[in-house]
């Protein structure tokens, strides 16, 4: 059954986030041959419409307003509901990001619809769109279907493949004018703590440090390795609690959930709290002095050794690999 599916393009620092392209890929599956319509909300975002189309959207609807310059649930909900009322879609996909998590339940509440959050896989099976999502902190999975109304899902970054970019694709970009009314929550200030460079939740490579890193300076070799691999640095709760790094880097049941292609755990024992945030990574490498450390039980490859010896050597080897590539 062909469906019209809307995808919210999420903009950060003037760019579309990767998860938005993945959401377009998800929407294509849900649409079953129907139309995929990108939605962009912001103060000045129409220039990004083309990119959504190149990644598979058939057309894009843009709502521009100064009140949408920063994300607020009030502003975005008004813009999005207006687009939904005008487009009457049968499906809706957001990224399962801070913004998506905040906005999607409200929109579902407003539309009295279901919502399947944090989806990692989508398939068409026996006439149903079947969504797979982790539950119990990633220790189990469930498959869910929508039984009534709108098919609405948020997709976890890094899990659903985007379509290949096709620069020859074109599509209609239209503007919907929406009167954004007063916002009940006003952002007074944004304190940037998240590190520069690659976004941890979307990174393809994550280099994470635990208590074994021993100090703030101990993260330096990890940062160097991350830079060579174009990855992001993360941390266990232990390292954050010990104040070796900021809590914005924490990966785990509390903290971020990441599913990169490559996860290198350095000096991390592998407590359940931490595994909940990274155990679904595609390939896990453990570097730890303690051969009994639990992290080796989930690792694909392990090196028993001192991270301060191993990590710089790895950095050098990867540099060689990049030069030869």
């Amino acid at each position, binding site marked *: 059954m062909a469906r019209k599916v809307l995808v919210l393009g999420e903009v950060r620092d003037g760019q579309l986030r990767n998860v938005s392209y993945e959401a377009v890929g998800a929407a294509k599956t849900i649409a079953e041959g129907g139309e995929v319509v990108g939605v962009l909300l912001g103060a000045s975002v129409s220039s990004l419409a083309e990119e959504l189309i190149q990644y598979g959207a058939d057309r894009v609807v843009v709502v521009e307003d100064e009140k949408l310059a920063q994300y607020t649930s009030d502003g975005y909900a008004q813009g999005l509901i207006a687009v939904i009322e005008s487009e009457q879609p049968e499906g809706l996909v957001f990224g399962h990001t801070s913004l998506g998590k905040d906005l999607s339940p409200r929109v579902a509440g407003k539309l009295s619809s279901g919502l399947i959050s944090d989806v990692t896989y989508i398939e068409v099976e026996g006439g149903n769109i079947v969504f797979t999502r982790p539950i119990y*902190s990633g220790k189990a999975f469930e498959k869910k279907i929508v039984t009534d109304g709108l098919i609405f899902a948020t997709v976890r970054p890094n899990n659903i493949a985007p379509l290949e970019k096709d620069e020859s694709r074109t599509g209609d970009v239209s503007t919907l004018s929406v009167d954004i009314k007063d916002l009940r929550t006003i952002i007074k200030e944004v304190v940037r703590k*998240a590190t520069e460079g690659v976004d941890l939740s979307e990174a393809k490579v994550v280099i994470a440090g635990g208590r074994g890193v021993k100090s703030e300076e101990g993260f330096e070799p990890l940062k160097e390795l991350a830079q060579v691999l174009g990855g992001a640095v993360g941390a266990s709760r232990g390292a954050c609690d010990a104040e070796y790094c900021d809590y914005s880097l924490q990966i785990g049941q509390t903290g971020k959930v990441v599913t990169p292609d490559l996860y290198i755990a350095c000096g991390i024992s592998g407590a359940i709290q931490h595994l909940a945030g990274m155990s679904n990574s595609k390939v896990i490498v453990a570097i730890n002095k303690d051969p009994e450390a639990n992290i080796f039980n989930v690792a694909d*490859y392990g090196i028993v050794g001192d991270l301060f010896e191993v990590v710089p050597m*790895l950095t050098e080897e990867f540099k060689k690999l990049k030069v030869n590539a």
Partner: protein
Amino acid sequence: MNIFVLMKRTFDTEEKISISGGKINEDGAEFIINPYDEYAIEEAIQVRDAQGGEVTVITVGSEEAEKQLRTALAMGADKAVLINTEDDLEYSDQFTTAKILAEYLKDKDADLIIGGNVAIDGGSGQVGPRVAELLNIPYVTTITNLEINGSTVTVVRDVEGDSEVIETSLPLLVTAQQGLNEPRYPSLPGIMKAKKKPLDELELDDLDLEEDDVEAKTKTIEIYLPAQKQAGKVLEGELADQVKELVSLLHNEAKVV
């Protein structure tokens, strides 16, 4: 200040998980207050102690949640409400739970509603914002600080590591993120007092809700455990050779770099 806390009883996910009869096996498992809801309870108690008023903890579930509600009362909440759906609903989802909670809350003149930002079992994080939408009040999710000055409220919201300082007003719903506070343990006198505090039990009937009004919009068709990972390969030999081997494996075998 009339404060409500949305609480969920959850499976302790630090426990080993197994499946029997297509469901998560709960035999002998430990059940706890969802850890994020503990932050919510603690915050509610602190706000009440500073501003006066009353804290009511609500949950939707079965009779078994009484234990967690008593714990919340022992921490210092004043009243507890169990909306028992065990006999009425075979299957529910976040639409169901939010609708029931909003129906209960709609005439309670809540000034502040606090929940956890996500439950560690289902992990959807939907109920808080859904309830706020149904009650038509503003909300802020994943907060790490809350200050109330008259009717002005300043909250700090965690946004993937960055912090937003947000100004808003009551009535308000917020969801707690780690770092909001340090939840207290119930004291012995607290536990004694909790036994005498009111714990009301309601059913859908009492809220004038029919089963059809809250019928789930989604359905779980299968629950499964992730495939057991094959034991990983711990490399051997000289460290320098191990490092070379690892890079080669990641490049040629795993093909991730």
